[in-house]
């Protein structure tokens, strides 16, 4: 039995679509060849940020078009791009400090902690909290809390203090990764060994093995236990 179609409104225009479709597939069902507002189609890239209201409900809802199923009366628009200022910086010339954050994004201190950003995040990130962390200079906390950010820009679009939360967050993540996270010593050692040519002969030997010799070696290799 075919599904009974339901009405949705794409930028105010009514279309009848199957109720099991995601917003993205519903737009394509309606006939849109999407160019903006599509990316990975899997919830990772932030291209398809969508805002909508449901019939008879004043509340503003958000979702990723590729992951959100349509509902009868859904009244939607996509936000495929929102102007978000990114400061110019060279990571290698920065220090992982509060002063750096404030110098790079002075508007950081305008944050009102109103929580609108948290309400509107499709990844359920506590954006308000990481902005509070940033205002205290706790770069590691910002890095941890903001990690799942797909930089869709919904928070930017709604922020009354005109912040650019995702850009502040990625600066913190990079500062953390480069300066605050402990370095992998074994990695630096291995890099030095490789650059000194220590593995050249071993790999050259492997390259000279015949397919049969390689096959034998492969079938007999020992596997590191779990």
């Amino acid at each position, binding site marked *: 039995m075919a599904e009974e179609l339901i009405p949705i409104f794409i930028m105010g225009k009514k279309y009848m679509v199957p109720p099991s479709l995601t917003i993205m597939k519903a737009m394509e069902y309606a*006939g849109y060849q999407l*160019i903006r507002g599509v990316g990975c189609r899997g*919830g*990772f890239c932030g291209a398809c940020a969508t805002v909508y209201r449901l019939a008879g409900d004043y509340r503003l809802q958000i979702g990723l078009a590729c992951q959100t199923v349509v509902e009868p009366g859904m009244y939607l628009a996509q936000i495929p791009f929102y102007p978000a200022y990114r400061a110019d910086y060279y*990571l290698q010339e920065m220090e992982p400090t509060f002063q750096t954050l404030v110098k790079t994004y002075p508007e950081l201190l305008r944050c009102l902690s109103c929580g609108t950003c948290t309400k509107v995040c499709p990844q359920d990130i506590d954006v308000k909290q990481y902005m509070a962390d940033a205002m205290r200079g706790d770069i590691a906390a910002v890095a941890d809390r903001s990690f799942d950010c797909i930089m869709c820009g919904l928070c930017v679009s709604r922020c009354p203090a005109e912040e650019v939360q995702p850009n502040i967050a990625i600066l913190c993540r990079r500062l953390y990764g480069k300066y605050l996270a402990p*370095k*992998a010593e074994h990695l630096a050692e291995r890099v030095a060994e490789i650059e000194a040519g220590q593995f050249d002969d071993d790999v050259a030997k492997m*390259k000279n093995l015949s397919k049969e010799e390689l096959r034998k070696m492969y079938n007999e290799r020992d596997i*590191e236990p779990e």
Partner: protein
Amino acid sequence: MSYTPEMRESINKVEATRPARLHETFPMMSPQEKQTILEKFHPDYRAEGMREIRVGVSKGHRMPLELADVMEGASHLTSDTLDLEQIDYDTDVLVIGGGGAGSSAALLARENGAKVIIANKLRHGDANTMMAQGGIQAADKPNDSPAIHYLDVMGGGHFANYPDLVEALVKDAPLVIKWLEDLGCMFDKEPDGTMKTIHGGGTSRKRMHSARDYSGAEIMRTLRDEVRSYPEDITVLEFAPAIELIMDDKGQVAGAVLLNMETGEHLVVRAKCTILATGGSGRLHYQGFATTNHYGATGDGLVLAYRVGAKLAFLDTMQYHPTGAAYPEQIVGLLVTEKVRGLGAQVCNMDGNQFVYPRETRDVESSALIRECAERGKGVMTPSGMVGVWLDSPMIDVLHGPGTVEKELPAMVRQFGRFDIDITKEPMLVYPTLHYQNGGISLKPDGSTDVPNLFAAGEISGGVHGRNRLMGNSLLEITVFGRRAGKAAALRAKEVKLGKLTLSHVDKWQQELEEAGIENLIKSPILLPDYRRKLR
């Protein structure tokens, strides 16, 4: 959207067998068993799914029907469509495609003195890189070495890989991890800084580095942010795919014609060297499979390169990822990272029984899942007619402690959570999905091709992985060869003297198509898949 009563019954069986299974290791297949199962069940071996390409320098090369149609396509242009004297952008290195490979290439090209333009079809960072979840391989632990990594890569690739490319891959691997660490990538680490590394399919050492299960996204957004630090040297164009390469009258590649997707304007980019980094082709849906790939993965770069005479390799093998989501219907085909199995989750049939070692190489694992459903009838049906088997994720918390799934696989928890499925408590339903283009443009270790001034890097290329890629070697390939191609292109650009720009190769191509009697030509590259329903 959560599970139907029938599916729940099957899940109950999975839960019943779990305590015993925690101590069971299903045996790995012998080489003969592997070969047999591939021949009987792997989509590559379905002869009706492939055909030979009828034109071009690699005429006779077998590839999926859908790809052959696109590769035999006509150009969007003729040689006199545009006045090539009117140049919109003039640069040292043009990078076509700004994913992990393209962005790595741009950074290294700039470092080696080149002015760079990156032309993106969609946004900068809209690439398969952004969706890669599991991790990136590198032999940087004391119990491991590039030689051991080499052996794993060759074995996974059925010993068909090009040795020089594998050598480059495994020796550059630790260097690339260090580079990413220095750029600020947040790899999973122990408190003392030691990289947390796990197994993947086909690995003999735990050398998979990850950033939770957003490994690709972490790498992509870091590279993208770094590129944005150099606006004077690297110009990033968006919604401007290349629709044809430009050559000069000396037979060198000399740039490309870009199409502004939003205005329809054509742009002429003159470049001393051109790097193709357009990624994969999953959106061509070979054999009707769903895909993990992003919207723009339509094999554009293959079409462009082939028209100027670049040779192809290993396009008769596509990688199907064993665990694509099979339920709910809204996310069918999307990637469920191999890291789930790397953390110990087992694959179970409708009766809750294991039927394959969880970490065979992807081609073997996929074949086993297909066999379990198709031949043995032990798959679980979904209301939409999809079939799948269970990936027992709750086991992970039992093996490694509560909270492990949430900590190590946040993207998966979120993806299924949106549809009311809690993967920390309930298994996921999975089935093979079209994932990766093992082959492509034939490459040298420095990223150059046979065509003068044309370079390539990443999923678009063929030879590194032989006939099957291992998990974690794609994020590795894009950074290793992206960097190599960027550097080589920048150095080569210093010596290049371009002649008069021409699109005469487009006319020659059209002639070749006509002489081969190829009719009903589609125009290619197709740029985007068309998912619209047929309207009146």
